[in-house]
């Protein structure tokens, strides 16, 4: 059964690919008009992406399983990708550098592409198992993925810090650092909110707010890394390379919390695969 949202999300994936090529074109001919068109494309893509998620929500009612599309691995990939683009648009003033939008939309493209191509990802709307039937699901998933998206931006800045990309119109190192802190300042409270809402939910669903499940433990590890980032920067006054390295390590921890735990370790969160 092909549902409306599959078509829309397919188009969204194609648009991310188009945005990627627009960037390549920009780096080749360096016309400012391309930067503007990149942003127009990003706005259109975000609108369609939002529409795709809403349509999936509506479609889920059509197949009599009505629930927000935040419940399985496919839906989380789509939502993760949405959060990254949302973050770009939200922080346009700061993030309006082609090299940053390139990497961010490339990660969105990879997530969307993986979601639609990988045979291991079930694209169907699945019924909501009893453990997930809770309003905490929405707030927990949304806060977690907004934090992940913010950490994606932080990671890109940390990575760019090590490359001299002046020819791409890359921001200066101090600007990169600045954006890096800004995104951790969004990501850290959001991750905290994600962990705490998860804990409260776990209390109501499983009877224990913390059970050292691998997903929980890894989210705590990620939290500690970004807490160290903030203390290193603002209390110890670390700058430059060291901070960039912490943001890269932090992102690997995010990736492991999101993917690694599901694929390598098993636990209570196993329905996310």
């Amino acid at each position, binding site marked *: 059964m092909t549902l409306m949202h599959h078509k829309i999300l397919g188009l969204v994936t194609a648009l991310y690919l188009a945005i990627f090529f627009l960037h390549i074109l920009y780096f080749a001919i360096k016309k400012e008009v391309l930067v503007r068109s990149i942003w127009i494309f990003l706005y259109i893509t975000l609108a369609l992406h939002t529409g795709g998620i809403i349509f999936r929500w509506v479609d889920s009612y059509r197949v009599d399983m009505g629930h927000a599309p935040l419940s399985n691995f496919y839906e989380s990939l789509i939502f993760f990708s949405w959060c990254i683009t949302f973050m770009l648009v939200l922080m346009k003033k700061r993030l309006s550098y082609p090299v940053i939008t390139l990497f961010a939309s490339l990660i969105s493209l990879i997530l969307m592409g993986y979601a639609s191509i990988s045979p291991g990802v079930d694209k169907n709307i699945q019924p909501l198992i*009893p453990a997930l039937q809770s309003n905490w699901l929405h707030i927990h998933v949304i806060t977690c993925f907004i934090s992940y998206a913010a950490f994606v931006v932080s990671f890109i800045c940390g990575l760019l810090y090590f490359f001299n990309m002046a020819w791409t119109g890359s921001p200066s190192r101090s600007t990169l650092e600045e954006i890096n802190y800004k995104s951790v300042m969004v990501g850290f409270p959001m991750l905290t909110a994600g962990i*705490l809402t998860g804990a409260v939910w776990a209390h109501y669903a*499983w*009877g224990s707010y913390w059970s050292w499940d691998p997903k929980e433990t*890894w989210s705590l590890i990620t939290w500690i*890394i970004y807490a160290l980032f903030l203390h290193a920067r603002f209390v110890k006054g670390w700058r430059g390379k060291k901070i960039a390295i912490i943001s890269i390590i932090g992102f690997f921890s995010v990736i492991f919390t999101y993917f690694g735990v599901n694929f390598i370790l098993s636990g209570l969160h196993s329905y996310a695969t």
Partner: protein
Amino acid sequence: MSVIKNNRGEPLPAKEKSLKNIILGFFGSVRLAVAVLTFIALVSILGTIIKQNAPPDEYLSLYSQTSLKIISLFGLDDVFHAPWFIGAIVLFVINLLVCTYNRFFSYFRAEKKVRLPEEKALMSLHMCFKLNLEREKDAIAIIKKRFRRILYQGEDGVVLERAPYAKYGVLLIHGSIFIILIGSLIGLLWGYKGFIVLHRGEVKDMMVVRGRAPKEIPLGFALKCRDFNVSFYPNGAPRDYVSRLEVIEKDRVILEKDVRVNSPLSHKGMHIYQSSYGASPTFVFRVDGEPVSLREQDSHEDDGFIMIAMRFEKAIHDFGPGVQVAFLDNGEPRTTWFLRDIPRMRQRDLGGKKVVLEDIKEDLWTGLEVSYDPGIPFVWTGFGLMMLGLYINFFVVPGKIFLRRLPDSIIVAGVGSRHIDRFGEIFEKIKGNLYDTDAS
């Protein structure tokens, strides 16, 4: 730009290096915090890689002899309860408390006196502008909307402040971690978890507490399962499972609730969760014409005759469900199978009695998790305070505005202590407001 004031958390330049200061310096240092947190993070990784709290056989099949020795030596099969892990958390708490203690006084020291700087000093500030004298009232009115606190008021001008509480954000975050850990300690010391299996209609007042040696303890009240239902999606996945429970005290039903996943029952500080369900068979026999209902492992005795329903099989080859029955034949223990769907195998002569298996009914049971955790209010309070602290620390923009009267004009200047760029935006807005009304 700085989110957290650049205060090292160590005692401010001590006049003398007393032992107390050295100890406070060490236990309150950020370096110790970094070391302890890194340690906790690293061993937590171990705790997710090495199988935790599994039965011994599983370890034997998973790991080699040598690695098993290391695992058991350091307690790596239960990292999060190992003494050295608890020790690290205790060290972290000490660090947190000493660090807070060291910083505590600096919170109030800065409070004491606010001066209105001279014209020159104000003009050298990054954010400042001049206005006509007669605009003073407007200016104060507009600034007061965003800077509510008056720090100083005199002939020469005013000092106004916004979000003076912002400096407590860090204190709140750190304090909340302490409160959460206190809550979890209370839970560890006085809380417990148990399990109850109830068939439809069954009443129990005991629960099984898990652990190395499971034991039954009283619930403090009786729990009756009036009904239990499972519904499924078309694809076979469970949609909902509901236990209709009654809490009974002194033979009176005092509470009734449909307990489902995500919707526990709470009574006397105890939470009862829908955790699992299953089916167990009931065997309906007729022994010499008398009806006898047995569950698995139940026995029936009558006048020297004894039979036990040993084992249930859903399908014996292709012959449908059956039950193995043990009985005494002239003092000799024997077993035999009864098959429900094969007429020839439904009737047997056991030690002189005619036994007929009339039916096998599958009864649903509900598995309920019970938890008692008196630390929960602390943990929830800690969660709330942590979110509040994070909000204050990352999203509230504190700062001061100085307004000084000069003979021919007034100077308005701003100083932000944190989130300087956002403070700048607020300052620019005020400036814009004043110039707009000026033009009209």
